[in-house]
Protein backbone atom coordinates (compact mmCIF):
# COMPACT_ATOMS: atom_id res chain seq x y z
CA UNK A 1 0.00 0.00 0.00
CA UNK A 2 1.66 3.21 -1.14
CA UNK A 3 0.67 6.17 0.96
CA UNK A 4 1.41 9.82 0.29
CA UNK A 5 1.20 12.33 3.12
CA UNK A 6 1.04 16.06 2.39
CA UNK A 7 2.82 17.94 5.12
CA UNK A 8 3.38 21.61 5.79
CA UNK A 9 5.93 23.51 7.78
CA UNK A 10 4.27 26.18 9.91
CA UNK A 11 5.34 28.77 12.45
CA UNK A 12 4.51 27.58 15.94
CA UNK A 13 1.46 29.74 16.60
CA UNK A 14 1.61 28.91 20.26
CA UNK A 15 4.78 30.89 20.54
CA UNK A 16 4.57 33.51 17.82
CA UNK A 17 4.23 37.06 19.01
CA UNK A 18 2.78 40.08 17.35
CA UNK A 19 4.46 43.44 17.43
CA UNK A 20 1.78 45.61 19.06
CA UNK A 21 3.17 48.78 17.51
CA UNK A 22 3.24 47.69 13.89
CA UNK A 23 0.61 44.95 14.07
CA UNK A 24 2.92 42.66 12.18
CA UNK A 25 4.14 39.22 13.00
CA UNK A 26 7.39 38.91 14.75
CA UNK A 27 8.46 35.88 12.74
CA UNK A 28 11.78 35.55 14.48
CA UNK A 29 9.85 34.76 17.65
CA UNK A 30 8.32 31.63 16.18
CA UNK A 31 10.23 28.48 15.43
CA UNK A 32 9.03 26.57 12.36
CA UNK A 33 7.55 23.19 13.13
CA UNK A 34 5.86 20.32 11.33
CA UNK A 35 2.13 21.11 11.31
CA UNK A 36 0.90 19.00 14.28
CA UNK A 37 -2.01 17.46 12.38
CA UNK A 38 0.35 16.35 9.63
CA UNK A 39 2.48 14.51 12.19
CA UNK A 40 -0.64 12.47 12.94
CA UNK A 41 -1.05 11.87 9.21
CA UNK A 42 2.48 10.49 8.93
CA UNK A 43 1.99 8.38 12.04
CA UNK A 44 -1.19 6.88 10.58
CA UNK A 45 0.57 6.13 7.31
CA UNK A 46 3.37 4.38 9.20
CA UNK A 47 0.80 2.35 11.13
CA UNK A 48 -0.97 1.29 7.93
CA UNK A 49 2.33 0.37 6.30
CA UNK A 50 3.07 -1.95 9.21
CA UNK A 51 -0.16 -3.83 8.49
CA UNK A 52 -0.37 -3.66 4.71
CA UNK A 53 3.22 -3.17 3.58
CA UNK A 54 4.22 -0.64 0.93
CA UNK A 55 5.80 2.74 1.23
CA UNK A 56 5.21 6.07 2.96
CA UNK A 57 6.18 9.17 1.02
CA UNK A 58 5.76 12.73 2.24
CA UNK A 59 5.30 15.79 0.04
CA UNK A 60 5.75 19.38 1.06
CA UNK A 61 5.58 22.68 -0.71
CA UNK A 62 7.64 25.37 0.93
CA UNK A 63 10.94 27.24 1.16
CA UNK A 64 14.23 25.32 1.42
CA UNK A 65 14.07 25.36 5.21
CA UNK A 66 10.97 23.13 5.03
CA UNK A 67 13.48 20.27 4.62
CA UNK A 68 13.52 20.17 8.40
CA UNK A 69 9.81 19.33 8.53
CA UNK A 70 10.39 16.49 6.07
CA UNK A 71 13.24 15.16 8.21
CA UNK A 72 10.88 15.16 11.16
CA UNK A 73 8.55 12.92 9.12
CA UNK A 74 11.41 10.55 8.42
CA UNK A 75 11.93 10.41 12.18
CA UNK A 76 8.31 9.34 12.57
CA UNK A 77 8.93 6.68 9.96
CA UNK A 78 8.38 8.02 6.43
CA UNK A 79 10.45 6.30 3.74
CA UNK A 80 10.90 9.20 1.43
CA UNK A 81 10.31 12.93 1.23
CA UNK A 82 9.83 15.37 -1.62
CA UNK A 83 10.06 19.12 -1.30
CA UNK A 84 8.65 21.24 -4.09
CA UNK A 85 10.31 24.57 -3.76
CA UNK A 86 10.40 27.43 -6.22
CA UNK A 87 9.82 31.16 -6.07
CA UNK A 88 6.99 30.66 -8.54
CA UNK A 89 5.03 28.75 -5.87
CA UNK A 90 5.27 31.63 -3.40
CA UNK A 91 2.22 33.51 -2.18
CA UNK A 92 -0.19 30.68 -2.96
CA UNK A 93 -3.64 30.55 -1.39
CA UNK A 94 -5.36 27.19 -0.96
CA UNK A 95 -6.48 26.95 -4.60
CA UNK A 96 -2.97 27.53 -5.93
CA UNK A 97 -1.47 25.31 -3.23
CA UNK A 98 -3.70 22.40 -4.13
CA UNK A 99 -2.77 22.88 -7.79
CA UNK A 100 0.96 22.75 -7.14
CA UNK A 101 0.66 19.72 -4.84
CA UNK A 102 -1.59 18.03 -7.38
CA UNK A 103 1.01 18.43 -10.12
CA UNK A 104 3.65 16.82 -7.89
CA UNK A 105 1.24 14.05 -6.89
CA UNK A 106 0.52 13.30 -10.55
CA UNK A 107 4.19 12.74 -11.13
CA UNK A 108 4.53 10.58 -8.01
CA UNK A 109 1.51 8.54 -9.06
CA UNK A 110 3.19 7.81 -12.36
CA UNK A 111 6.42 6.86 -10.59
CA UNK A 112 5.07 4.45 -7.95
CA UNK A 113 1.30 4.48 -7.87
CA UNK A 114 -0.52 5.83 -4.82
CA UNK A 115 -3.32 4.05 -2.96
CA UNK A 116 -4.04 6.65 -0.34
CA UNK A 117 -3.35 10.36 0.23
CA UNK A 118 -3.34 11.80 3.74
CA UNK A 119 -3.52 15.43 4.84
CA UNK A 120 -3.89 17.12 8.18
CA UNK A 121 -7.30 18.40 9.24
CA UNK A 122 -5.86 21.87 8.84
CA UNK A 123 -2.61 23.77 9.04
CA UNK A 124 -2.37 25.78 12.26
CA UNK A 125 -1.19 28.96 10.55
CA UNK A 126 -4.39 29.44 8.60
CA UNK A 127 -6.74 26.81 9.95
CA UNK A 128 -8.56 26.64 6.63
CA UNK A 129 -8.61 22.90 6.01
CA UNK A 130 -9.32 23.64 2.36
CA UNK A 131 -6.23 22.18 0.75
CA UNK A 132 -7.08 18.50 1.26
CA UNK A 133 -10.51 18.51 -0.41
CA UNK A 134 -9.02 20.74 -3.13
CA UNK A 135 -6.30 18.19 -3.93
CA UNK A 136 -8.85 15.36 -3.94
CA UNK A 137 -11.08 17.21 -6.40
CA UNK A 138 -8.13 17.83 -8.71
CA UNK A 139 -6.99 14.21 -8.67
CA UNK A 140 -10.59 13.06 -8.98
CA UNK A 141 -10.69 10.94 -5.83
CA UNK A 142 -13.10 11.22 -2.87
CA UNK A 143 -12.05 13.36 0.09
CA UNK A 144 -12.98 12.01 3.51
CA UNK A 145 -12.45 14.83 5.98
CA UNK A 146 -12.15 14.94 9.79
CA UNK A 147 -11.18 11.28 10.06
CA UNK A 148 -10.77 9.99 13.62
CA UNK A 149 -10.31 6.30 12.85
CA UNK A 150 -9.47 4.00 9.99
CA UNK A 151 -11.91 1.18 10.48
CA UNK A 152 -10.86 -1.16 7.72
CA UNK A 153 -8.68 -1.36 4.62
CA UNK A 154 -9.35 -4.06 2.07
CA UNK A 155 -6.73 -3.97 -0.64
CA UNK A 156 -8.28 -6.86 -2.59
CA UNK A 157 -11.52 -5.04 -3.20
CA UNK A 158 -9.75 -1.64 -3.10
CA UNK A 159 -12.06 -0.29 -0.41
CA UNK A 160 -11.61 1.39 2.90
CA UNK A 161 -13.90 2.39 5.76
CA UNK A 162 -13.24 5.33 8.04
CA UNK A 163 -14.89 7.11 10.92
CA UNK A 164 -15.49 10.83 10.33
CA UNK A 165 -16.12 13.26 13.14
CA UNK A 166 -19.30 15.26 12.60
CA UNK A 167 -21.38 17.48 14.88
CA UNK A 168 -22.34 15.60 18.03
CA UNK A 169 -21.11 12.27 16.77
CA UNK A 170 -19.51 10.45 13.91
CA UNK A 171 -20.29 8.67 10.68
CA UNK A 172 -18.81 5.62 9.07
CA UNK A 173 -18.17 6.06 5.41
CA UNK A 174 -16.85 3.62 2.87
CA UNK A 175 -14.78 4.67 -0.10
CA UNK A 176 -13.05 3.16 -3.09
CA UNK A 177 -9.27 3.47 -3.18
CA UNK A 178 -7.48 5.66 -3.90
CA UNK A 179 -9.03 8.32 -1.73
CA UNK A 180 -7.83 11.21 0.40
CA UNK A 181 -8.24 11.52 4.17
CA UNK A 182 -7.78 14.58 6.34
CA UNK A 183 -6.99 13.46 9.86
CA UNK A 184 -7.88 14.75 13.32
CA UNK A 185 -5.55 14.42 16.29
CA UNK A 186 -7.71 11.73 17.85
CA UNK A 187 -6.70 9.29 15.12
CA UNK A 188 -3.52 8.24 16.93
CA UNK A 189 -0.76 9.36 19.23
CA UNK A 190 2.49 10.30 17.62
CA UNK A 191 5.00 7.89 19.07
CA UNK A 192 8.48 8.77 20.19
CA UNK A 193 10.77 8.03 17.30
CA UNK A 194 12.93 4.94 17.60
CA UNK A 195 16.67 5.54 17.46
CA UNK A 196 17.27 4.08 13.98
CA UNK A 197 14.69 6.53 12.58
CA UNK A 198 16.44 9.42 14.30
CA UNK A 199 19.76 8.39 12.84
CA UNK A 200 18.29 7.99 9.39
CA UNK A 201 16.53 11.34 9.64
CA UNK A 202 19.71 13.13 10.68
CA UNK A 203 21.41 12.06 7.45
CA UNK A 204 18.36 12.19 5.22
CA UNK A 205 18.20 14.64 2.36
CA UNK A 206 14.77 15.16 0.77
CA UNK A 207 14.40 15.17 -3.00
CA UNK A 208 13.82 18.73 -4.15
CA UNK A 209 11.78 19.59 -7.23
CA UNK A 210 11.26 22.95 -8.86
CA UNK A 211 8.43 23.88 -11.21
CA UNK A 212 10.57 22.64 -14.09
CA UNK A 213 10.62 19.12 -12.66
CA UNK A 214 6.82 18.90 -12.88
CA UNK A 215 4.93 18.13 -16.07
CA UNK A 216 2.28 20.14 -17.94
CA UNK A 217 2.24 22.95 -15.45
CA UNK A 218 0.13 26.00 -16.16
CA UNK A 219 2.29 28.68 -14.59
CA UNK A 220 -0.68 31.03 -14.35
CA UNK A 221 -2.26 28.76 -11.75
CA UNK A 222 0.74 28.87 -9.41
CA UNK A 223 1.66 31.10 -6.52
CA UNK A 224 0.34 34.59 -6.06
CA UNK A 225 -0.80 34.78 -9.69
CA UNK A 226 -2.87 31.63 -9.35
CA UNK A 227 -4.51 32.73 -6.12
CA UNK A 228 -8.02 34.15 -6.41
CA UNK A 229 -8.00 35.49 -2.86
CA UNK A 230 -5.89 38.40 -1.72
CA UNK A 231 -5.58 40.22 1.56
CA UNK A 232 -7.20 43.63 1.39
CA UNK A 233 -6.87 45.77 4.44
CA UNK A 234 -5.72 44.76 7.91
CA UNK A 235 -6.81 46.56 11.03
CA UNK A 236 -6.78 46.10 14.78
CA UNK A 237 -10.25 45.24 16.06
CA UNK A 238 -12.23 48.06 17.64
CA UNK A 239 -11.51 48.63 21.28
CA UNK A 240 -14.41 48.99 23.65
CA UNK A 241 -14.31 51.33 26.65
CA UNK A 242 -12.38 48.69 28.49
CA UNK A 243 -12.91 46.99 31.79
CA UNK A 244 -13.66 48.63 35.10
CA UNK A 245 -10.55 47.62 37.01
CA UNK A 246 -10.87 46.45 40.57
CA UNK A 247 -7.92 47.42 42.72
CA UNK A 248 -6.87 46.56 46.21
CA UNK A 249 -5.48 43.40 47.72
CA UNK A 250 -6.58 40.01 46.42
CA UNK A 251 -9.05 39.54 49.20
CA UNK A 252 -10.83 42.78 48.36
CA UNK A 253 -10.65 42.02 44.63
CA UNK A 254 -12.26 38.63 45.19
CA UNK A 255 -15.13 39.95 47.27
CA UNK A 256 -15.77 42.79 44.81
CA UNK A 257 -15.89 40.28 41.97
CA UNK A 258 -18.36 38.14 43.88
CA UNK A 259 -20.58 41.20 44.29
CA UNK A 260 -20.55 41.82 40.54
CA UNK A 261 -21.21 38.17 39.81
CA UNK A 262 -24.21 38.30 42.07
CA UNK A 263 -25.66 41.08 39.91
CA UNK A 264 -26.53 38.07 37.78
CA UNK A 265 -28.30 36.55 40.72
CA UNK A 266 -30.87 34.74 38.59
CA UNK A 267 -28.08 32.53 37.21
CA UNK A 268 -27.27 30.94 40.50
CA UNK A 269 -29.95 28.64 41.80
CA UNK A 270 -29.98 28.78 45.54
CA UNK A 271 -29.50 25.21 46.55
CA UNK A 272 -31.93 24.07 49.17
CA UNK A 273 -34.50 26.54 47.94
CA UNK A 274 -37.00 23.72 47.29
CA UNK A 275 -37.07 22.87 50.94
CA UNK A 276 -38.93 26.04 51.73
Amino acid at each position, binding site marked *: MNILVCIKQVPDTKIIKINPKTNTLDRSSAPAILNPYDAHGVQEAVRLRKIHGGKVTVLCMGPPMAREAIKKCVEIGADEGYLISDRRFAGADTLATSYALYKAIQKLMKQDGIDLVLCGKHAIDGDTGQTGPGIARRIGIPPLTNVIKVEEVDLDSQQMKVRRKIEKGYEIIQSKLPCLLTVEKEINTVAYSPLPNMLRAARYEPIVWTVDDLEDVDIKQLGLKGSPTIVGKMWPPAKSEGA*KMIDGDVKKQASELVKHMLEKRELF*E*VKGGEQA
Partner: protein
Amino acid sequence: MNLEEYRGVWVFIEQREGKLVDVGLELLGAGRALADKLEVDLCGVLLGSNVKDLAKDTFEYGADKVYVIDDPILEQYRTETYMKAVGDLVRKYKPEIFLYGATANGKDLASAVATEVMTGLTADTTLLDVNLEKRLFEASRPAFGGNIMATILCKKHRPQMATVRPKVMKKLDPQPGRVGEVIEESISLKEENLKTKVIEIVRSAKAAVNLEEAEIIVSAGKGIKDEKGFKMVEQLADVLNATVGASRDVVEMGLCGHDHQVGQTGATVTPKLYIAIGISGAVQHVVGMQNSEMIIAINNDPDATIFNVAHFGVVADAFEIVPLLTEEFKKALKNEVEAEEGGVAHV
Protein backbone atom coordinates in the same frame (compact mmCIF):
# COMPACT_ATOMS: atom_id res chain seq x y z
CA MET B 1 -14.81 35.05 -16.81
CA ASN B 2 -17.38 37.81 -17.27
CA LEU B 3 -17.97 39.06 -13.75
CA GLU B 4 -21.09 40.98 -14.80
CA GLU B 5 -22.95 37.74 -15.44
CA TYR B 6 -22.75 36.79 -11.77
CA ARG B 7 -25.56 38.15 -9.64
CA GLY B 8 -27.23 37.20 -6.38
CA VAL B 9 -26.27 36.12 -2.88
CA TRP B 10 -26.48 32.41 -2.09
CA VAL B 11 -26.53 30.52 1.15
CA PHE B 12 -26.02 26.79 1.54
CA ILE B 13 -28.95 25.55 3.63
CA GLU B 14 -27.59 22.58 5.53
CA GLN B 15 -30.05 19.99 6.75
CA ARG B 16 -29.30 17.05 8.98
CA GLU B 17 -31.58 14.06 8.94
CA GLY B 18 -34.35 16.21 7.50
CA LYS B 19 -34.02 19.14 9.89
CA LEU B 20 -32.60 22.54 9.05
CA VAL B 21 -29.35 23.36 10.80
CA ASP B 22 -29.37 26.76 12.52
CA VAL B 23 -26.26 28.10 10.84
CA GLY B 24 -28.03 28.17 7.46
CA LEU B 25 -30.74 30.41 8.89
CA GLU B 26 -28.12 32.61 10.54
CA LEU B 27 -26.41 33.02 7.19
CA LEU B 28 -29.71 34.02 5.61
CA GLY B 29 -29.75 36.84 8.15
CA ALA B 30 -26.25 37.94 7.14
CA GLY B 31 -26.93 37.31 3.45
CA ARG B 32 -30.10 39.42 3.55
CA ALA B 33 -28.09 42.52 4.42
CA LEU B 34 -25.62 41.85 1.60
CA ALA B 35 -28.38 41.16 -0.94
CA ASP B 36 -30.25 44.34 0.02
CA LYS B 37 -27.12 46.40 -0.41
CA LEU B 38 -26.44 44.88 -3.82
CA GLU B 39 -30.14 44.95 -4.74
CA VAL B 40 -30.21 41.30 -5.71
CA ASP B 41 -32.07 38.19 -4.60
CA LEU B 42 -31.07 36.15 -1.59
CA CYS B 43 -31.19 32.48 -2.53
CA GLY B 44 -30.88 29.28 -0.57
CA VAL B 45 -29.50 26.00 -1.86
CA LEU B 46 -31.21 23.02 -0.31
CA LEU B 47 -30.13 19.46 -1.07
CA GLY B 48 -31.35 16.14 0.27
CA SER B 49 -34.06 13.55 0.05
CA ASN B 50 -37.63 14.56 0.98
CA VAL B 51 -36.49 18.02 1.93
CA LYS B 52 -38.62 20.19 -0.35
CA ASP B 53 -40.97 21.12 2.46
CA LEU B 54 -38.14 22.73 4.38
CA ALA B 55 -37.91 25.45 1.75
CA LYS B 56 -40.81 27.47 3.11
CA ASP B 57 -39.01 27.95 6.44
CA THR B 58 -36.13 29.61 4.65
CA PHE B 59 -38.51 32.20 3.18
CA GLU B 60 -39.60 33.17 6.68
CA TYR B 61 -35.95 33.76 7.53
CA GLY B 62 -35.26 35.98 4.55
CA ALA B 63 -34.70 33.90 1.40
CA ASP B 64 -36.31 35.10 -1.84
CA LYS B 65 -35.67 31.90 -3.78
CA VAL B 66 -34.58 28.42 -2.96
CA TYR B 67 -32.91 26.03 -5.38
CA VAL B 68 -33.91 22.55 -4.34
CA ILE B 69 -32.56 19.23 -5.49
CA ASP B 70 -34.60 16.51 -3.89
CA ASP B 71 -33.16 13.11 -4.77
CA PRO B 72 -32.58 9.90 -2.79
CA ILE B 73 -28.96 9.98 -3.88
CA LEU B 74 -28.54 13.13 -1.78
CA GLU B 75 -30.06 11.65 1.36
CA GLN B 76 -26.75 11.67 3.21
CA TYR B 77 -24.03 14.19 2.72
CA ARG B 78 -21.28 12.94 0.46
CA THR B 79 -18.69 15.24 -1.01
CA GLU B 80 -18.88 13.68 -4.47
CA THR B 81 -22.64 14.11 -4.87
CA TYR B 82 -23.06 17.46 -3.13
CA MET B 83 -20.06 18.97 -4.89
CA LYS B 84 -21.50 17.97 -8.25
CA ALA B 85 -24.96 19.26 -7.41
CA VAL B 86 -23.74 22.62 -6.13
CA GLY B 87 -21.20 22.94 -8.93
CA ASP B 88 -23.93 22.46 -11.53
CA LEU B 89 -26.16 25.06 -9.89
CA VAL B 90 -23.33 27.58 -9.73
CA ARG B 91 -22.47 27.06 -13.38
CA LYS B 92 -26.09 27.44 -14.40
CA TYR B 93 -27.26 30.35 -12.23
CA LYS B 94 -23.99 32.20 -11.53
CA PRO B 95 -24.24 33.74 -8.06
CA GLU B 96 -21.78 36.47 -7.07
CA ILE B 97 -21.52 35.56 -3.37
CA PHE B 98 -21.91 32.15 -1.75
CA LEU B 99 -21.90 31.54 2.02
CA TYR B 100 -21.55 28.22 3.83
CA GLY B 101 -21.73 27.34 7.53
CA ALA B 102 -18.34 26.24 8.83
CA THR B 103 -19.64 22.88 10.03
CA ALA B 104 -17.84 19.61 9.29
CA ASN B 105 -19.79 19.08 6.08
CA GLY B 106 -20.16 22.76 5.19
CA LYS B 107 -16.38 23.25 5.21
CA ASP B 108 -15.84 20.04 3.30
CA LEU B 109 -18.35 21.07 0.65
CA ALA B 110 -17.14 24.65 0.29
CA SER B 111 -13.54 23.50 -0.16
CA ALA B 112 -14.50 20.99 -2.84
CA VAL B 113 -16.79 23.41 -4.68
CA ALA B 114 -14.11 26.13 -4.68
CA THR B 115 -11.87 23.78 -6.62
CA GLU B 116 -14.73 22.46 -8.75
CA VAL B 117 -15.61 25.95 -10.02
CA MET B 118 -12.12 27.42 -9.53
CA THR B 119 -12.78 30.30 -7.23
CA GLY B 120 -11.59 31.79 -3.96
CA LEU B 121 -12.83 30.72 -0.54
CA THR B 122 -12.23 32.46 2.78
CA ALA B 123 -12.44 30.31 5.89
CA ASP B 124 -14.03 31.08 9.25
CA THR B 125 -15.04 34.64 8.56
CA THR B 126 -16.53 36.75 11.33
CA LEU B 127 -17.54 39.91 9.48
CA LEU B 128 -19.16 40.24 6.06
CA ASP B 129 -19.75 43.33 3.96
CA VAL B 130 -19.73 44.56 0.38
CA ASN B 131 -17.90 47.41 -1.24
CA LEU B 132 -20.66 48.77 -3.48
CA GLU B 133 -18.48 50.98 -5.60
CA LYS B 134 -16.32 48.06 -6.70
CA ARG B 135 -19.10 45.55 -6.17
CA LEU B 136 -16.71 43.43 -4.12
CA PHE B 137 -17.44 41.09 -1.26
CA GLU B 138 -15.38 41.88 1.85
CA ALA B 139 -14.95 38.77 3.99
CA SER B 140 -13.03 39.48 7.18
CA ARG B 141 -11.45 37.14 9.67
CA PRO B 142 -8.97 37.33 12.48
CA ALA B 143 -5.55 37.06 10.93
CA PHE B 144 -2.76 34.78 11.69
CA GLY B 145 -1.31 34.79 15.13
CA GLY B 146 -2.47 38.00 16.67
CA ASN B 147 -4.59 40.97 17.37
CA ILE B 148 -5.50 41.91 13.89
CA MET B 149 -8.36 41.48 11.47
CA ALA B 150 -7.87 41.02 7.75
CA THR B 151 -10.29 41.52 4.89
CA ILE B 152 -9.98 38.91 2.16
CA LEU B 153 -11.03 39.84 -1.36
CA CYS B 154 -11.63 37.75 -4.44
CA LYS B 155 -11.46 40.21 -7.30
CA LYS B 156 -11.38 38.22 -10.49
CA HIS B 157 -13.28 35.04 -9.74
CA ARG B 158 -16.91 34.30 -9.02
CA PRO B 159 -18.67 33.34 -6.89
CA GLN B 160 -16.88 34.95 -3.98
CA MET B 161 -17.17 32.32 -1.28
CA ALA B 162 -16.79 32.20 2.50
CA THR B 163 -17.47 29.89 5.40
CA VAL B 164 -18.85 31.30 8.65
CA ARG B 165 -18.86 29.64 12.07
CA PRO B 166 -22.18 28.78 13.70
CA LYS B 167 -23.51 31.46 16.09
CA VAL B 168 -21.43 34.27 14.63
CA MET B 169 -24.27 35.75 12.55
CA LYS B 170 -27.82 36.39 13.71
CA LYS B 171 -31.04 34.91 12.38
CA LEU B 172 -33.72 37.39 11.42
CA ASP B 173 -36.98 37.24 13.33
CA PRO B 174 -39.08 34.86 11.27
CA GLN B 175 -41.86 36.49 9.25
CA PRO B 176 -44.69 34.00 9.22
CA GLY B 177 -46.34 33.79 5.84
CA ARG B 178 -43.43 35.34 3.93
CA VAL B 179 -43.17 33.40 0.68
CA GLY B 180 -40.67 32.92 -2.09
CA GLU B 181 -39.94 30.93 -5.18
CA VAL B 182 -38.91 27.29 -5.18
CA ILE B 183 -36.79 26.29 -8.15
CA GLU B 184 -36.47 22.56 -8.52
CA GLU B 185 -33.46 21.10 -10.24
CA SER B 186 -32.34 17.55 -10.72
CA ILE B 187 -29.09 15.66 -10.54
CA SER B 188 -27.92 13.01 -12.95
CA LEU B 189 -25.78 10.71 -10.86
CA LYS B 190 -26.18 6.95 -10.55
CA GLU B 191 -25.45 5.17 -7.30
CA GLU B 192 -23.41 2.47 -9.04
CA ASN B 193 -20.99 5.06 -10.39
CA LEU B 194 -20.25 6.58 -7.01
CA LYS B 195 -17.14 5.87 -5.02
CA THR B 196 -18.39 6.50 -1.51
CA LYS B 197 -21.21 5.31 0.67
CA VAL B 198 -22.31 6.37 4.15
CA ILE B 199 -22.73 3.22 6.21
CA GLU B 200 -23.85 4.66 9.50
CA ILE B 201 -24.43 7.98 11.26
CA VAL B 202 -24.19 8.05 15.03
CA ARG B 203 -25.18 11.17 16.92
CA SER B 204 -25.35 11.29 20.65
CA ALA B 205 -28.39 13.23 21.80
CA LYS B 206 -26.36 15.43 24.08
CA ALA B 207 -22.94 16.79 23.40
CA ALA B 208 -20.58 16.21 26.29
CA VAL B 209 -19.75 19.90 26.39
CA ASN B 210 -22.31 22.40 25.28
CA LEU B 211 -20.56 25.74 25.34
CA GLU B 212 -22.89 27.35 22.85
CA GLU B 213 -25.88 27.07 25.14
CA ALA B 214 -24.07 27.64 28.43
CA GLU B 215 -25.20 30.58 30.56
CA ILE B 216 -22.05 30.70 32.66
CA ILE B 217 -18.59 29.90 31.32
CA VAL B 218 -15.35 29.86 33.22
CA SER B 219 -12.50 29.78 30.72
CA ALA B 220 -8.90 28.82 31.23
CA GLY B 221 -5.96 30.31 29.32
CA LYS B 222 -2.30 29.48 29.25
CA GLY B 223 -1.81 31.56 32.38
CA ILE B 224 -3.13 28.63 34.40
CA LYS B 225 0.03 26.80 33.34
CA ASP B 226 -0.71 23.16 34.03
CA GLU B 227 -3.09 20.50 35.23
CA LYS B 228 -3.12 21.91 38.73
CA GLY B 229 -4.13 25.30 37.42
CA PHE B 230 -6.81 23.74 35.26
CA LYS B 231 -8.20 21.87 38.30
CA MET B 232 -8.42 25.18 40.10
CA VAL B 233 -10.49 26.62 37.27
CA GLU B 234 -12.71 23.55 37.24
CA GLN B 235 -13.35 23.97 40.95
CA LEU B 236 -14.55 27.52 40.45
CA ALA B 237 -16.73 26.36 37.56
CA ASP B 238 -18.15 23.67 39.77
CA VAL B 239 -19.22 26.10 42.47
CA LEU B 240 -20.78 28.41 39.88
CA ASN B 241 -22.40 25.50 38.06
CA ALA B 242 -20.59 26.78 34.98
CA THR B 243 -19.28 25.14 31.82
CA VAL B 244 -15.50 25.08 31.40
CA GLY B 245 -14.10 26.86 28.37
CA ALA B 246 -10.52 27.19 27.19
CA SER B 247 -8.25 29.06 24.82
CA ARG B 248 -6.69 27.14 21.96
CA ASP B 249 -3.34 27.03 23.70
CA VAL B 250 -4.86 25.18 26.64
CA VAL B 251 -6.47 22.70 24.26
CA GLU B 252 -3.14 22.26 22.46
CA MET B 253 -1.46 21.62 25.80
CA GLY B 254 -3.77 18.66 26.15
CA LEU B 255 -5.46 19.94 29.32
CA CYS B 256 -8.91 19.48 27.78
CA GLY B 257 -10.57 18.47 24.53
CA HIS B 258 -11.27 20.68 21.53
CA ASP B 259 -14.95 20.78 22.43
CA HIS B 260 -13.97 23.19 25.24
CA GLN B 261 -12.31 25.65 22.88
CA VAL B 262 -13.79 29.10 22.56
CA GLY B 263 -12.92 31.26 19.56
CA GLN B 264 -12.56 31.50 15.85
CA THR B 265 -11.89 27.80 15.46
CA GLY B 266 -13.78 26.70 18.52
CA ALA B 267 -17.23 27.60 19.76
CA THR B 268 -18.80 31.04 19.54
CA VAL B 269 -20.42 31.65 22.90
CA THR B 270 -22.88 34.16 24.32
CA PRO B 271 -23.27 33.35 28.02
CA LYS B 272 -24.64 35.74 30.62
CA LEU B 273 -21.34 35.51 32.48
CA TYR B 274 -17.88 34.75 31.05
CA ILE B 275 -14.88 34.58 33.32
CA ALA B 276 -11.54 34.57 31.50
CA ILE B 277 -8.66 33.36 33.62
CA GLY B 278 -5.11 33.76 32.34
CA ILE B 279 -6.27 34.49 28.79
CA SER B 280 -4.39 37.20 26.92
CA GLY B 281 -7.25 38.20 24.63
CA ALA B 282 -5.96 37.34 21.16
CA VAL B 283 -8.48 38.32 18.53
CA GLN B 284 -9.08 34.66 17.61
CA HIS B 285 -10.28 34.09 21.15
CA VAL B 286 -12.16 37.36 21.50
CA VAL B 287 -14.33 36.87 18.39
CA GLY B 288 -15.74 33.79 20.07
CA MET B 289 -16.79 35.42 23.35
CA GLN B 290 -17.10 39.19 22.91
CA ASN B 291 -20.89 39.11 22.89
CA SER B 292 -21.14 37.66 26.39
CA GLU B 293 -23.37 39.74 28.68
CA MET B 294 -20.83 40.17 31.47
CA ILE B 295 -17.14 39.46 31.01
CA ILE B 296 -14.77 39.25 33.94
CA ALA B 297 -11.05 39.00 33.21
CA ILE B 298 -8.34 37.85 35.55
CA ASN B 299 -4.77 38.37 34.37
CA ASN B 300 -1.49 39.29 36.00
CA ASP B 301 -0.52 41.56 33.11
CA PRO B 302 -2.22 44.97 33.35
CA ASP B 303 -1.74 45.45 29.60
CA ALA B 304 -3.42 42.21 28.52
CA THR B 305 -5.84 42.95 25.66
CA ILE B 306 -8.56 40.87 27.30
CA PHE B 307 -9.20 43.92 29.51
CA ASN B 308 -10.34 45.82 26.42
CA VAL B 309 -13.38 43.60 26.00
CA ALA B 310 -14.02 42.78 29.66
CA HIS B 311 -16.52 44.62 31.83
CA PHE B 312 -14.65 43.98 35.06
CA GLY B 313 -10.98 43.23 35.40
CA VAL B 314 -8.55 42.32 38.11
CA VAL B 315 -4.80 42.33 37.80
CA ALA B 316 -3.86 39.42 39.99
CA ASP B 317 -2.11 36.09 40.10
CA ALA B 318 -4.70 33.50 39.12
CA PHE B 319 -3.22 31.03 41.56
CA GLU B 320 -3.95 33.42 44.41
CA ILE B 321 -7.30 34.86 43.44
CA VAL B 322 -9.15 31.94 41.88
CA PRO B 323 -9.20 29.70 45.00
CA LEU B 324 -10.17 32.76 47.00
CA LEU B 325 -12.95 33.59 44.60
CA THR B 326 -14.23 30.03 44.80
CA GLU B 327 -14.35 30.24 48.60
CA GLU B 328 -15.89 33.70 48.71
CA PHE B 329 -18.56 32.74 46.27
CA LYS B 330 -19.41 29.58 48.17
CA LYS B 331 -19.72 31.66 51.30
CA ALA B 332 -21.89 34.28 49.68
CA LEU B 333 -24.27 31.67 48.35
CA LYS B 334 -24.42 29.91 51.67
CA ASN B 335 -25.20 33.14 53.48
CA GLU B 336 -28.04 33.76 51.10
CA VAL B 337 -29.44 30.30 51.59
CA GLU B 338 -29.38 30.80 55.33
CA ALA B 339 -30.95 34.21 55.04
CA GLU B 340 -33.64 32.81 52.83
CA GLU B 341 -34.34 29.84 55.04
CA GLY B 342 -34.50 32.20 57.98
CA GLY B 343 -36.99 34.28 56.01
CA VAL B 344 -39.17 31.28 55.33
CA ALA B 345 -39.26 30.39 59.03
CA HIS B 346 -40.77 33.75 59.86
CA VAL B 347 -43.78 33.33 57.62
